[in-house]
């Protein structure tokens, strides 16, 4: 089985869609000659031409809104927001329009639109370029939110997104584009709303998405050295969210830990914790632990920045002290 990076998996998925379906086109800031800020669309312009690889003005609202309109007109647009932070300039189009049109039209119009956005901090970009805002979008009915952690899932979820007729926010963490993993040659998809047990364990459930899956995995390896068996669950999509798989893990381990990079207040982890206690309260041996990004705008200084994002050491010490293990 070939080993590729998340970046290569996304490139593969986009090319497949462009090759298969003439109604697919991509538009975004600097996706053409520049090749995309994170190089996912490098070489696309030469291969597919300017009609299908549209470099847009720096105007996020019309990028997303035009994607919505083109989708209503029978196309399958992919809009690349350079980062999720810039998505705030397109909030009206994403939340007020793309997410609502099917419902408000009584089902007459669908919006098959993929919005790709880079998320996450840790890249030395300071407060405005380092946010994890996917949880905000996940609170909106009508949207779907994908947050892959591996090349396999990045490709599988992207393929599912192309097969879906709804507006999808596809959040790609900036620091994991280079993460490698095995991806089969044969066609497969990864469904929305289905979590996966990445590591099986018996004492503690570590629940995470995107880059924090890797942090949780690293922490699980450390905790295993001390005889603490952790199960790592990758939820993969925030909306729909697979509470059933998460609850099943908690029913086995009786200890739930949510690891997320976003801020604690109102973070998606709060939703995960809330749903766990709704369906598995009796199975919990103690309070659910949340390990989150510090409640500060992310600082530029490298040392302080590192302190603001959960890492494996923090997960290990928090788990030990919280559960007295």
């Amino acid at each position, binding site marked *: 089985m070939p080993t590729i990076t998340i970046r290569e998996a996304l490139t593969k998925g986009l090319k497949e869609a462009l090759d298969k379906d003439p109604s697919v086109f991509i538009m975004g800031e600097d996706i053409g000659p520049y090749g995309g800020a994170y190089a996912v669309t490098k070489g696309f312009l030469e291969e597919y031409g300017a*009609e299908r690889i549209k470099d847009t003005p720096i105007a996020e609202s019309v990028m997303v809104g035009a994607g919505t309109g083109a989708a209503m007109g029978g196309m399958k647009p992919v809009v690349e927001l350079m980062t999720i932070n810039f998505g705030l300039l397109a909030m009206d189009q994403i939340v007020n329009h793309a997410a609502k049109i099917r*419902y408000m039209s009584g089902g007459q119009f669908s919006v098959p639109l993929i919005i790709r956005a880079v998320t996450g901090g840790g890249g030395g970009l300071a407060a405005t370029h380092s946010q994890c805002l996917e949880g905000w979008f996940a609170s909106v009915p009508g949207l779907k939110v994908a947050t892959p952690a591996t090349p396999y899932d990045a490709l599988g979820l992207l393929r599912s997104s192309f097969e879906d007729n709804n507006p999808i926010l596809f959040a790609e963490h900036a620091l994991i584009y280079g993460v490698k993993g095995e991806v089969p040659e044969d066609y497969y998809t990864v469904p929305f709303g289905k979590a996966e047990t990445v590591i099986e364990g018996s004492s503690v459930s570590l629940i995470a998405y995107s880059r924090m899956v890797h942090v949780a995995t690293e922490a699980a390896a450390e905790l295993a050295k001390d005889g603490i068996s952790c199960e790592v669950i990758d939820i993969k999509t925030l909306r729909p969210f697979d509470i059933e798989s998460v609850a099943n893990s908690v029913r086995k381990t009786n200890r739930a830990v949510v690891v997320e990079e976003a801020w604690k207040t109102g973070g998606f982890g709060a939703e995960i914790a809330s749903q766990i206690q709704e369906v598995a309260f009796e199975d919990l041996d103690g309070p659910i632990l949340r390990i989150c990004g510090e409640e500060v705008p992310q600082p530029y200084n490298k040392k302080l920045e590192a302190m603001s994002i959960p890492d494996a050491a923090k997960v290990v010490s928090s788990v030990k002290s919280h559960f007295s293990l």
Partner: protein
Amino acid sequence: MAKIKNNQSKEKGLESYTKEQLTIFYRQMFQIRRFEESAEEQYMRGNIRGFLHVYTGQEAVAVGAISALRKSDYLVTHYRDHGHALAKGLASKSAMAELFGKATGCSKGMGGSMHLFDKSINLMGGYAIVGGQLPIATGLGISSKELGKGQVVMVFMGDGALNEGELHESLNMAAIWNLPVIFYLENNLYGMGNHTTDVFAVKELKKVSEPFGIPNLEVDGMDVIAVNQATQAVVEKVRKGSGPFFIEAKTYRFRGHSVADPSNYRGKSEEETWKKRDPITSLETSMIQSGLVEKDEISNIRSSVEEEIADAVKFALESPDPEDATLYHNVYDS
């Protein structure tokens, strides 16, 4: 910048239309007028909820402009959308039932007055966030162009939308990609209660398109013939691939911003001056004076509209609410 001049006399304008076309204009404008008056009445009776923004006074714009479109052309509009929807061909009973929130409404009771959709006539929706419809129309311009079906997109905005960044982003994208989009400004002088000249720095509103190289023209929005002639010429150009166009129709809403608005911010004399230019009365007078129609024919049209609107209200009243289960329908396309 505009190549199209609209300087023909009204009489000359009338002559270039058949009696049938003119009576259709008349009927459509009167249909919108009576629809809106009935809607206000039903609102007062508690049968219509939420906001209700009526189009009364602006009928010549919707009818004159949208008559220049084909059924397959895309129409995108804003929250004051009843007139546009009816002019595009939405059945009055389907529109009224939507205002009542009934299952038989064009949006199945899920959108209401500000969100009228009808896929069968490419009525792509009323959008109630000011300016939000403009990027969507721009995107429909992309699909029209790429899929090559020769469709033109017409998108309406009020003068309140001029200050929204989404307009400027949309004009720019439509211009750089030469999209078949007609940006149609209905300048009724007020964005809610703000006079446009107090809140928009460009005094001649249509000039907002000029920095983008988008040609524009201004038209008398109280004259259905003037609107139709100007729009037909623009639609023809845009369909041939000339790129986007900007039209400003000068018009006036005879009623408040919504039914809750007594219009205290504007003078009664201003209202009276504009009401003397009522587009429906004007067309009626011109048609009778030019000997095209008899008074009887006008009466017949009016009674047929009265009957239609009464039927629409009856239909809306008698229609069922949506089923409970529909609360959860169509959040997603599954």
